[in-house]
């Protein structure tokens, strides 16, 4: 998400008064007005419209939208003059293979314009450029450069120049190690045997993309009139689009665009290419997708409001638009020009039968049954901390599903609800007792997700919680068995006051089998679904709870299957 800040006075002078109607127009153009005051206004630009990331780019499109301009804005691209050439050396091939370049002349810079240019450059780096990974833009004062230019790659220690914001000559490697910008973007060149550079005819280094420009040749000032612009990176079509965005902004500021000849091996290319791109737009597709009944004349008008030209089913799209992949993108432009507020919402007659997930119905029934016993439902995060999941329950860390680079202590997916229920009781020691709580929710084990139910009462004993469980099972009409534990019980219960909860009549894969289950746990149509018991004082101590707690947790998946 990127915002641009516009000078309000300039906006009101060149576009119109920022009244309520204008604020609404800005939102309905798809660029919400984030905030504004008497001096400035902040506009949000969605990632599909990087061409709006500068005042001049925004103004160009928005003037069409509000009807003060019409159709595709044409820019004259002058032919290359002598030495308007960039040689692309084969050494960049595996390092930073592409560049698109141009020259803009006759500029009159002032503070605001320089700021706008630097600003849009940074915003393009950040958005389309994916933090300079995909592309970087350089703008240089032509008076300091001797044409033609070469784009090549050199060993880092052979690269020597004074980078911006310093007074010292540094090698390529030193820049990555010591220069603040170098350090920030070092990862983009790390591990490469050669670094890319632009050099002029006198072998002066202009820049080392995507890191930094030279102090001597890479900084525009108020006296600069002519500039050399390059985009370098990995995706040539996108480089061209970005170059177009920059040169058209410079042209809107009063500059004249000149193309350059790019020589690579034996091949030649000319950039920039500002010839419009053509895409078909079908009237009936448009009307059927939007639910409108527009004729060709209306569609032409709407398309022109979005800064395109329309001619007999073909749209000429500006070469700075990056968001036109398919006809539907043009149809959306028609919709925006038509005005989202002008569409009349309508519910179609699509006859279908509504249906809830069975699981959700059962979960709701369980909650209702328990609420009838005066028990409160809690709702906890799915992510939890190792401290709560393991340490406070006095169990070994195992079966962890951890998320990468979490910004909080919540780094693992919860394996059970019991520890969260204990946490809830622990955080409510100042609330009125007795406390009766339950949660129905998802837990994560071995990358499998299951719905569990956990319930705790405090102060209470084994009997009370067992009564609740047995009431629930009777109300659900799902038979359970309370059994003496056969294996090790969860560490948080008191030995001798903990029972296994067993679901009988579980449909097994092999129905004929009557032999003992794999774990030797009775008939194979029985399944252990959880434990019930009194919490051991050592666990209560960990949680700073000074009341006896009894708790059960069961896996609900088999119950869902039985009730289905």
């Amino acid at each position: 998400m990127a915002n641009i800040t516009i000078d309000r006075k300039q906006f009101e002078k060149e576009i119109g008064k920022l009244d309520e109607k204008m604020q609404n127009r800005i939102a309905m153009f798809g660029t919400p007005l984030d905030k504004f005051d008497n001096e400035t206004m902040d506009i949000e630009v969605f990632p599909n419209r990087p061409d709006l990331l500068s005042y001049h780019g925004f103004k160009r499109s928005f003037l069409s939208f509000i009807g003060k301009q019409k159709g595709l804005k044409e820019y004259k691209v002058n032919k290359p003059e002598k030495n308007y050439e960039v040689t692309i050396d084969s050494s960049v091939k595996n390092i930073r293979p592409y560049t698109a370049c141009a020259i803009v002349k006759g500029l009159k810079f002032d503070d605001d314009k320089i700021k706008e240019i630097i600003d849009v450059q940074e915003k393009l780096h950040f958005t389309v450029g994916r933090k300079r990974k995909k592309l970087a833009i350089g703008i240089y004062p032509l008076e300091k450069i001797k044409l033609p230019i070469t784009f090549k790659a050199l060993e880092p220690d052979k690269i020597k120049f004074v980078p911006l914001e310093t007074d010292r000559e540094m090698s390529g490697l030193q820049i990555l190690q010591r220069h603040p910008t170098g350090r920030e973007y070092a990862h983009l060149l790390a591990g490469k045997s050669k670094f890319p550079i632009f050099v002029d005819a006198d072998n002066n280094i202009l820049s080392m993309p995507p890191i930094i420009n030279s102090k001597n040749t890479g900084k525009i000032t108020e006296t600069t009139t002519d500039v050399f612009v390059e985009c370098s990176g990995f995706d040539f079509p996108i480089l061209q689009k970005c170059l177009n965005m920059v040169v058209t902004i410079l042209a809107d500021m009063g500059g004249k665009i000149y193309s350059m000849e790019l020589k690579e091996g034996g091949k030649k290319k000319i950039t920039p290419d500002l010839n419009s791109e053509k895409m078909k737009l079908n009237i009936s597709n448009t009307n059927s997708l939007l639910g409108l009944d527009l004729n060709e004349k209306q569609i032409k008008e709407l398309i022109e409001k979005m800064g395109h030209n329309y001619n007999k089913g073909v749209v000429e799209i500006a070469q700075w638009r990056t968001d036109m992949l398919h006809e539907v993108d043009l149809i959306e432009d028609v919709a925006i020009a038509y005005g989202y507020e002008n569409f009349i919402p309508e519910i179609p007659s699509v006859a279908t039968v509504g249906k809830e997930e069975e699981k959700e119905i059962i979960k709701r029934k369980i909650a209702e049954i328990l609420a009838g016993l005066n028990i409160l439902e809690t709702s906890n995060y799915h992510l939890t901390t190792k401290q709560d999941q393991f340490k406070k329950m006095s169990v070994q860390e195992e079966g962890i599903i951890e998320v990468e680079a979490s910004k909080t202590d919540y780094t693992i997916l919860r394996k059970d609800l019991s520890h969260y229920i204990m946490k809830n009781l622990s955080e409510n020691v100042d609330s009125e007792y007795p406390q009766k709580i339950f949660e129905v929710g998802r837990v994560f084990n071995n990358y499998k997700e299951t719905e569990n139910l956990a319930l705790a009462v405090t102060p209470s004993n084994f009997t009370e919680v067992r009564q609740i469980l047995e009431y629930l099972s009777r109300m659900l009409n799902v038979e359970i068995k309370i059994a003496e534990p056969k294996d090790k019980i969860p560490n948080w219960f008191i030995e001798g006051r903990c029972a296994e909860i067993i679901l009988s009549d579980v449909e097994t894969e092999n129905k004929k089998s009557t032999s003992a289950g794999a774990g030797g746990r009775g008939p194979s149509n029985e399944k252990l679904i959880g434990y019930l018991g009194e919490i051991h004082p050592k666990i209560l101590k960990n949680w700073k709870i000074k009341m006896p707690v009894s708790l059960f947790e069961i896996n609900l998946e088999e119950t869902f299957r039985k009730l289905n």
Partner: protein
Amino acid sequence: MDEKLIESLSPNERKILPYLKENINEISRQSKLDRTSVLRALEYLENKKIIVLSRERKKIVELGVNGSLYHKKGLPERRLLNLLNEKRILRLDEAQKQSALSDEEFKASIGALKKKALIEIKNEKLVLTGSGEEISRKTLEELFLELLPMEYHLLSPEQLYSLKSLEKRKDIIFIREEELIDISITKLGEEVIKSGKGTGELIEAVTSKLLEKESAWKGKKFRRYDVTSPLPSVNGGKRHFVNQATDYARKVWTEMGFQEMSGNIIQSSFWNFDALFTAQDHPVREMQDTFFINKKVELPDKKLVKAVKESHEKGNDGSKGWGYEWNEEEAKRLVLRTHTTCVSANTLANLDKKNIPAKFFAIGKCFRNETVDWSHGFEFNQTEGIVIGKNLNFRHLLGYLQEFFKKMGFEKVRFRPSYFPYTEPSVEIDVWHPEKKIWFELGGAGIFRPEVTIPLLGENMTVLAWGPGFDRMIMDYYEIKDLRNMYKNDLSQLRKMKFWMK
């Protein structure tokens, strides 16, 4: 006089009613109630305007532990004086021995008697010097002690003098603070007492014993309750308020003919991003924004994977695609779903064409790698919907959304252009908050792009889709200002929380 008032008197109030002219100790004695019960009954009578209580804090001068003892045996100086009155002259050690006084008492006694010029000390001997009359007269201190207990503010100057001198000695005097309650009977009270009805029998509680015999209650009156008096509150069990709200949304969707879909929280990047035409270098696919799990899974059937790869790389149905080399390994990375739209993608891929038209919804938790503050959290609820069918259009999308938000309580809905990689046209939904008078943003919607629908459905079919966030609506309904309070599980808060009344 109000009969109802008399019938509302509790048994204790009735018991003390005849003795209201007495002081509290006397009331307690006569009514055989303890002091606390008497005080409570007096308060009730005051509430009923039968009496007026005036409270005053007073200091009461009482005998201390030694004081009570001396009250019986006489003050030490009196005992010494009596001894001397017999013996006239005694050696100091003899005098102490025979008077059986402690060192402290003995010293204090000598001091007191010398001060009154009743004795002298000559050559280690005590000599009686006072006259017979002087000796037999009670001292001021003795007179004072006999009068105790007394109210401090009523003491005369001589008594105050005695108090000061006795206070210096151990535990003779004890000053207690007491709240004195003065009862004055109101005009209404006089009438009630005079009527004599206030002490008649009323049935207090309906007990099973009472019900045994009809004669026990027939024709009798029941003591009236003060039905308006404040009481401690009770609390009940209930669903968590977030679940109440999601259940309501579930009801709204099913009433509109939508079928519920569900899915895992752990998803492959394939379903969460790739199947939704989100380019592999899109910023949302960085660890900065999304929770990744360091594990990969196998992708679904090859045909679908190939179609998704194709739509990313070179597009389909005339689309240009994103124009990059799609990496299958990247699609295998596990994530915590960032939106429920991955559930929609999965539903479309498994949809039996015979069941079209179809409408589905989902409500579920989604995740993003965020720090936690009042407006941010790493988990949030989303409600998802898709409509698949022929002849569907943009106005229908807006129609469903408007209806849903109306049912959620937002009469005014605004749609404005937005952007999502998987929809075109894309919509941002704002609802008007009538009290705050602002539009607030609830989330996105749109029509799935052909780059999404063609791989999933095998053809370009219109699919209306939306996935607005749900938490802001819940927060607004319950007037929760801080997002962290949604899952704080503060039991006091949960007990107070009102039901979702929709």
